């Protein structure tokens, strides 16, 4: 059952306005090349789900006006500072933020993975997160007396987007230990993947690589594109482009600077990593 690789533009052409998209955390297989293609496509009103948090990929989409809701445990640029366009949009009140906490989002995806309408999780009671989340409920543990616990509805994104080192010809994707990506794919209706390369070996048939491979049944479409995580790192591939991230942080402090960044690095064609 082979899968025919396509282009990045073709991948994102499936994403309609208003779609709910699950995105990996900033340290794990982000497809920045798909984020840039989404911006070029001019998609609107996206509902981004950080699994469980997001970075530059979300900040770009927010700054470019593609997003109306973010549902996440955090939007962070890590050591570089606050995510500038997320922070500006949140302060302006133009972005709806569904603040969550990491294991709650993962629990909601696990409920979808299992086909149950909800899951439960310890913690959270007394947190103001619950005040602002009408979709989360405090209920009782039916196996004990007076033991409240939080009930979380299943979350089924329309899309998961990720970038990986390699896919094979059947459409199996090497992810190694980044298992949140497998959870996301299982919980989502469709999964779009960019990969550095497509290899001839069968990743799932080899018992050594099988455990770290996302099976093709969860994969909707694949594009082969080098440096697809850039400027983020790709575990097992390349390190993050610190100079570029600093440049982003400088430019994106203002709306004007951000537009300059977009023009140079998104609209004027697809950049590639300059230095090796």
């Amino acid at each position: 059952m082979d899968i025919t690789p396509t282009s990045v533009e073709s991948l994102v052409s499936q994403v309609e306005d208003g779609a709910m998209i699950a995105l990996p955390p900033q340290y794990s297989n982000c497809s920045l090349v798909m984020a840039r293609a989404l911006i070029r496509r001019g998609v609107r009103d996206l509902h981004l789900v950080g699994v469980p948090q997001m970075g530059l990929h979300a900040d770009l989409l927010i700054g470019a006006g593609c997003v109306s809701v973010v549902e996440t445990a955090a939007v962070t640029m890590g050591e570089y500072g606050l995510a500038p366009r997320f922070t500006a949009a949140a302060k302006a009140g133009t972005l709806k933020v569904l603040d969550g906490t990491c294991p709650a989002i993962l629990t909601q995806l696990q409920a979808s993975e299992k086909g149950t309408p909800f899951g439960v999780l310890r913690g959270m009671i007394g947190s103001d997160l619950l005040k602002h989340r009408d979709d989360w409920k405090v209920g009782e543990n039916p196996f004990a007396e007076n033991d409240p616990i939080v009930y979380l509805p299943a979350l089924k994104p329309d899309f998961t987007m990720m970038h990986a080192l390699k896919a094979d010809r059947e459409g199996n994707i090497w992810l190694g230990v980044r298992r949140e990506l497998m959870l996301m794919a299982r919980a989502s209706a469709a999964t779009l993947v960019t990969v550095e390369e497509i290899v001839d070996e069968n990743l799932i048939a080899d018992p050594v690589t099988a455990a770290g491979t996302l099976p093709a049944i969860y994969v909707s479409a694949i594009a082969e594109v080098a440096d697809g995580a850039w400027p983020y790192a790709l575990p097992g591939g390349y390190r993050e482009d610190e100079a570029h991230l600093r440049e982003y942080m400088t430019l994106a402090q203002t709306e004007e600077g951000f537009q300059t960044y977009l023009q140079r690095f998104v609209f004027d064609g697809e950049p590639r990593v300059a230095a090796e």
Partner: protein
Amino acid sequence: MTTPTETPTVRPEEVLIEAISGMLAGLSHVAVGASSPIPGAAAFLTNSRAPTKTRVSILGSERNFFNEGARELFDLAGQGRIDAFFLSGGQIDGQANVNLVAVGDYRKPKARFPGSFGSAHMYYLVPRVILFRWEHSRRTLVEQVDFISAPGVSPANVHRPGGPHALITNLCLFDFDRQRARFRLRSVHPGHSLEEVRDQTGFDFDLPEDGQVPFTPTPDAATLETIRGPVARRLAEVYPTFAARVFDLGSAA
């Protein structure tokens, strides 16, 4: 990046590393968040002192033993397999509530922080949560947080095997009393004073029972050697920027 012209005998960070390490001694498993170099160094120091006793895992790093992805840290906490963890906050208040979300009106905030991360779960489940906030000021240590990402204490019927154990800043170390829901000053770091702590703290706190506020002990020569040698080298693998700045070590780009 400037190179210090003269290395101080004991760096302020090293005092904190030693103090935190003291609170981790004897624990089986210490987990550290992704952007916590001082707690990370403290955990490495504890591990250096008792390599067969204390495991350290650094969240988001490839240098840990997780293979279940993002949920494994939280699952480990739920299983009771994490003994200590660190949290910070844009604001922390006198009841040990932490705010990682926003200052002012939540819907149109004056300041917006990245978000709550895993705090609203870990703070309840890890027995010994150490609050770490370098900047000790009335801006960060407030009487009441504007948004509770995770509360310091919970009603008796809320399942909560874990919670706050201490708060450490660039000025001092507080213990937290969960019964009274109050901080008690344990020690002031060398070079600082009780008055300075009072000035810079937005919440009311208790003093040691005997009324004497000691200085936070400084690491001895052997410990300093461990911190600056093996600990700094392990730190540079995970927090290169910090290691480069503080220890003049690391793989700067």
